[in-house]
């Protein structure tokens, strides 16, 4: 008997005027399966997942049937659903209810009215399994995002669910915390046999291990197969979702490889060495970096900063020069001080030593109106912190009264259709672009972006990249802080590594990632033994093509 049996499920929201968010979905999910649900933002993934748990199911018109262990889901008692179907959401912070780690772990068990003995045993068990014992007595407020999300997972696992549903659980985490989290989910699936249904942007980490991948588009299931076959199918259909596939898959089909499609970096390496054992062309041209930068848009000299008098220094002599009209990316670990650097440029943080010069003029010499009116602006990490009004249009009107200007910027950011929605009703990528529009209305010549790709899918990332390129053409200098090495490798003109409060190395992305062996893109890790300086999937495909051409 299938664990979940979905029969011809359709659903539409009351406000959607008959447009179906889910359209005739039929699926069967077996016990112990690991299923990846993928699709563009707004394709109905979340709506579908929420239908699998009655308390979370949104209001609306529903047709069809969902059976859980053979029983219609509505007939399964609240208690059973709470215990047996675990649901992890996106935002690590808001999901947490209590103030102590131990209490959060026990929350579900308390709700079910378990007795002390059972609770004690289960909580202890979970704390050990998830490695939480070291921070068991801590305040929730002092945890990192990754720890918070792990706590949410542990707190659900304490109820010993049969199914674990995860809705983009790592979208707010940095890559290291994200892969930690996803490994834990995989461990749960393998060791405990818990059925896992997960949606994710970061397919790289989970795609190879999934039993099945289900692709949705416009509320319909368009593919339901093993990950290997899905790659092929999407390539043949020329589907937008192909861009979200792991690098090895994209390289394989891009280079029109034959045989079994590689899914992991390891498989990709094997495939490359088999196919291109002695490549005639093995490197890509590398542009040299200009040592002398004339008229830098931004120059930082020996910045030192700490948040409190007695706390350690966050910035420890940051120096950098950003050439005008480039996209400059700063990469580096969590808490290294990247975001703080941007805040120092904006004057939100005041360094106690060093100087910040914007277009050659020290920042103290600017008046606030002069600096932020047509010179400098920053897009914060959480776009929500910029929304203060009821619709996107009103929010944009806060910046300027010029209707024409708003229309123009809205066109650049491709948000014309969203102007009358409430900012909170938009998806992550849409929020990001609306916030960007608001920032652009200040006419900045120097634009600072803090983690612009956080929580947005590959499709929206490409859209963002197009927008950034357009801005660059208009002569705007962009400084971006990011964890997303793939994005930086593909679109940045210069990349700097931030470590231990300093800017350590700066180079062109090709040389920067080409010379790194750990902190680099999947494409580079996959291809470095045959090709050098290939840092994006496109680079690797290009080299493969050249070699095929050379053989002929």
């Amino acid at each position, binding site marked *: 008997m299938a664990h979940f049996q979905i029969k011809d499920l359709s659903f539409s929201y009351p406000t959607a005027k008959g447009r179906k968010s889910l359209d005739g979905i039929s699926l069967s999910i077996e016990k112990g399966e690991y299923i990846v649900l993928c699709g563009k933002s707004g394709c109905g993934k979340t709506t579908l997942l929420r239908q699998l*748990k009655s*308390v*979370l199911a949104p209001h609306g018109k529903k047709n069809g049937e969902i059976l859980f262990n053979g029983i219609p889901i509505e007939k399964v*008692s*609240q*208690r059973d659903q*709470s215990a047996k179907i675990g*649901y992890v*959401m996106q*935002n690590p*912070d*808001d*999901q*947490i*209810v*209590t*103030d*102590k780690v*131990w*209490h959060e772990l026990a*929350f*579900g*068990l*308390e*709700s079910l*009215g*378990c*007795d*002390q003995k059972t*609770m*004690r045993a289960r*909580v202890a068990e979970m704390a050990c399994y998830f490695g939480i014992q070291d921070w068991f007595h801590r305040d*929730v*407020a002092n945890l990192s995002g990754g720890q918070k999300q792990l706590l*949410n997972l542990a*707190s*659900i696992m304490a*109820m010993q669910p049969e199914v674990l549903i995860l809705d983009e659980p790592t979208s707010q985490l940095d890559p290291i915390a994200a892969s930690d989290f996803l490994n834990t989910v995989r461990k749960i699936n393998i060791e405990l046999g818990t059925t896992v249904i997960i949606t994710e942007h970061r397919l790289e980490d989970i795609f190879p291990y999934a039993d099945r991948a289900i692709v949705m588009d416009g509320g319909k299931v368009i593919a339901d197969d093993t990950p290997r076959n899905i790659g092929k199918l999407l390539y043949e259909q020329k589907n937008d979702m192909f861009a979200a596939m792991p690098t090895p898959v994209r390289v394989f089909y891009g280079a029109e490889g034959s045989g079994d499609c590689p899914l992991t970096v390891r498989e990709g390496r094997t495939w490359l060495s088999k196919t291109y054992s002695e490549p005639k062309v093995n490197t890509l041209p590398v542009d040299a970096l200009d040592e002398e930068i004339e008229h830098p848009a931004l120059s930082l000299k020996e910045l030192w900063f700490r948040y409190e008098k007695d706390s350690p220094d966050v910035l420890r002599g940051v120096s950098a020069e950003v050439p005008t009209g480039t996209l400059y990316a700063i990469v580096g670990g969590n808490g290294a001080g990247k975001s703080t650097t941007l*805040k120092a440029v*904006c004057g*939100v943080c005041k360094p106690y030593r060093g100087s910040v010069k914007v277009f050659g003029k020290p920042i103290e010499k600017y008046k*606030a*109106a002069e*600096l*932020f*009116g047509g010179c400098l*602006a*920053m897009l*914060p990490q*959480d776009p929500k*912190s*910029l*929304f*203060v009004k009821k619709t996107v249009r009103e929010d944009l009107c*806060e*910046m300027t009264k010029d209707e024409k200007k708003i229309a123009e910027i809205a066109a650049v950011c491709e948000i014309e259709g969203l102007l009358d929605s409430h900012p*909170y009703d938009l998806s992550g990528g849409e929020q990001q672009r609306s916030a960007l529009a*608001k920032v652009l209305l*200040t006419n900045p010549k120097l634009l*600072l972006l803090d983690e612009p790709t956080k929580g947005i899918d590959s499709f929206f990332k490409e859209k963002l990249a197009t927008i950034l390129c357009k801005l660059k053409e208009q002569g705007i200098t962009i400084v971006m802080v990011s964890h997303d090495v793939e994005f930086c490798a593909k679109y940045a003109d210069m990349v700097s590594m931030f470590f231990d409060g300093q800017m350590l190395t700066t180079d062109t992305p090709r040389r920067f990632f080409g010379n790194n062996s750990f902190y680099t893109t999947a494409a580079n890790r996959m291809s470095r033994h045959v090709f050098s300086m290939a840092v994006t999937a496109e680079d690797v495909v290009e080299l493969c093509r050249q070699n095929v051409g050379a053989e002929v």
Partner: protein
Amino acid sequence: MADAFSKCHPAVNFLFFVGAIGMSVVIQHPAYLFAGIVTGAIYYLLLNGKKAWKTILSLLPMFLVLTVINPLFNTLGVTKLFEVFGRKYTIEALLYGAALASMFVIMMLWFGCYNKVLTSDKFTCLFGNLIPSISLLLLMVFRMVPNFIRKTQQIIGARMSIGKGISETATTKEKIQDGGTVLGALTSWALEGSVVTGDSMRARGYGAAKRSSFMIYRMTGTDWILLVVMLVLLGVTIAAAFFGQFVATFVPAIDIAPVSWGLAAYTCYLLIPTALHIKEAFQWHISRSKI
């Protein structure tokens, strides 16, 4: 090193402070007051380390002021020292003031200890069983306040970096308007967050069954012994009150009961946390020197 008494069951902690603070409200007998100040100060020092001296010394001027003020309002008493604005300033009233000031100091000291020992999670844990929904509500409120502060800072920072910060030249009206905007943004953000929190609670069965409450603290043998010892000492002290051992009147004439066994019981009671602390430090020292 963590304090030994703080590691006891919250019920033991709570009962102790109810006893200590409750007694300090009714007792005016100088010997008892002295015992209260000394024991309170010692434990406060043990809990907070060297920097606690500052707090304790800062209580001294307060003590003096309270003492000196009392005779200005209370002119009863037989031994006149001098006259202020034509009113008597008497020794009895001065001593009475000292007694009242001591009561105040004792309360400050024990409340200081209480704050350090009985943290909010212990308190909710203690009363969670009686009123689960209210204690959960309190918990969530506790969590909300720092969250709000953080988000407010985030919004203000974000607005500053697009030139929407409060400029130096802003008028009061502009400042208020800007504050209103931030508050509005904060409210919608918080509402959005609370929807997720609500979902997360219901997803984990909130309201699906009668709630129980997870007790992270367990009553151990030591806790029971302590509880019995405390109750006995407290009982003896209360008995002493019935025998009139607490009697101390200052005005109009000084009449103080002689010191008796009641004081011993009271002092022992107040020394319990200190004794536990010292005992553990001592044991630790011995076991370390054995290595």
